[in-house]
């Protein structure tokens, strides 16, 4: 592949997100970082395992009808996932700018999408408005790096709770809109929504910070 100009979009603790080109198309690469503090055996194992897991979760999410970027390439050895670049906007950046009806509608759709994930026992692990992109009126979920397959009520409750906290901290004026997320969720989720709701209340009481 010809060397193209790259741009770092985001640098986290575990990976960096790079804007690059793949076969002449704009693409995003998630490159997991090697860590000097851990021995090579653990480092390589973790990086390849997590890359594989993340790609698998993205494929599973798509199967459940949730939009995710198209994966172009997975390089397990180097821990790189190359995927479609989405032109749209992060939900985080537009959430506060929407009209009330639009915002309510968006929250409803967010809830529906989370329910679709949970119907397949897919736990995203970090549902925040930074990890959702609105592109051509489709809602995409990105960054499944902390995700897992888990059918437990606890895991689903925590997953929703993370979003509740994210809305409360990043969109404090619209904290109440989380109700619409739950409404959308209720409509689509096959399991016991009541159990998940009371689990969420328990998590809130536990007072953990995530």
């Amino acid at each position, binding site marked *: 592949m010809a060397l193209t100009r790259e741009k770092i979009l985001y640098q*986290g*603790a*575990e990976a960096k997100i790079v804007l690059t080109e793949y076969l002449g198309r704009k693409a995003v690469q998630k490159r997991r970082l090697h*860590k*000097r*503090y*851990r*021995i090579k*055996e*653990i480092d390589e*194992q*973790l990086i390849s395992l997590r890359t594989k897991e993340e790609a698998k979760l993205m494929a599973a999410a798509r199967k459940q009808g949730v939009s995710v970027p198209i994966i172009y390439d997975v390089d397990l050895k180097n821990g790189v996932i190359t995927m479609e670049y989405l032109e749209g906007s992060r939900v985080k950046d537009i959430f506060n700018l929407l009209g009330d009806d639009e915002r309510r509608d968006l929250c409803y759709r967010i809830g529906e999408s989370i329910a679709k994930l949970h119907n397949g026992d897919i736990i995203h*692990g*970090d549902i925040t408005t930074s990890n959702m992109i609105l592109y051509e009126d489709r809602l995409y979920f990105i960054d499944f790096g*902390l995700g*897992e397959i888990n059918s437990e009520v606890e895991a689903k409750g*925590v997953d929703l709770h993370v979003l509740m906290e994210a809305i409360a901290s990043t969109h404090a004026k619209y904290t109440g809109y989380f109700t619409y997320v739950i409404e959308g969720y209720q409509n689509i989720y096959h399991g016991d929504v009541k159990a998940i709701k009371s689990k969420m209340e328990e998590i809130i009481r536990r*007072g*953990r*910070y*995530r």
Partner: protein
Amino acid sequence: MIVLGIEGTAHTFGVGIVEDEDGCCRVLANVMTTYTPKEGGIHPREAANHHAEHAAEIISQALSKTGFSMREVDLIAFSKGPGLGPCLRTAATAARALVATYSKPIIGVNHCVAHLEIGRGVIPECNDPVLLYTSGANTQVIAFAEGKYRVFGETLDIGIGNCLDKFGRIVGLPFPSGPVIEKLASKSSRYLPLPYSVKGMDIAFSGLLTAAEQYYKRGEPVEDICYSIQETAFAALVEVTERAMAHTEKTQVLLGGGVAANNRLREMVKTMAEDRNAEFFVPPRDLCVDNGAMIAWLGLLMYKSGVRMKLEETTIDQRFRTDMVEVTWR
């Protein structure tokens, strides 16, 4: 202001005397005695008996180190929790007895927060760290956020120290096993794969312990297993700590708890800090382990910020959570 602190959450009964000097903590005395079970793990009642037996002697040892008499002490602080009920009750009773005899003010403090505050107190450059607190029972990543000390990650089952001790018992090492395991580990570089369990920001060690036990039963050399336990468990600890640092955008990391004495853990945290351009701090060993000085120091901070406790409010709380503490001094 001179404060006497009494620690008694688990194995250790400790008495520390501190004073403040330009906002920094000066440790005048820090004396402790540790209950060691003859076999098996800690028995809460026996540990409490040990504490009761040694309380008077440790208190007078601490006082005589400073040359002060009880009359010159301005405040008594004690570990309110979290910890083992009988041990907590013994330490609190000792504190109340002193208060009743010498009519001093009294404050019960949170043990986990004390581990963090003592680091800030004795290391002037350490202002706003993420604390990796690793001891027998506790394994938490703590940082100050939105007005409180919050737990950003913690063990979902057993503490890392407990994990090391349990493995030590299986293979016949003395208690505490951490230092012996460290020594054995330094003789090996053969890695045996063990479960690496990080869930989001949390960690778990029981799977690793079971797998390590199986290696032992299969006849793998103890040195190799010790090496593999350290490398796996510590890597998970460092990963969670780094995540908390990235999340809170803090650029300091502090170690606390008994396992902070482990050189391999220190090295790994230091490397992580270097790679993020962050500062790395670790207090002297006697302030890392459970000790009275940290209890005294947190008591001092709370008192100076206006906290007062009536005698009837000095109950213990076995499940005293880090984020239940009203932080009035920051």
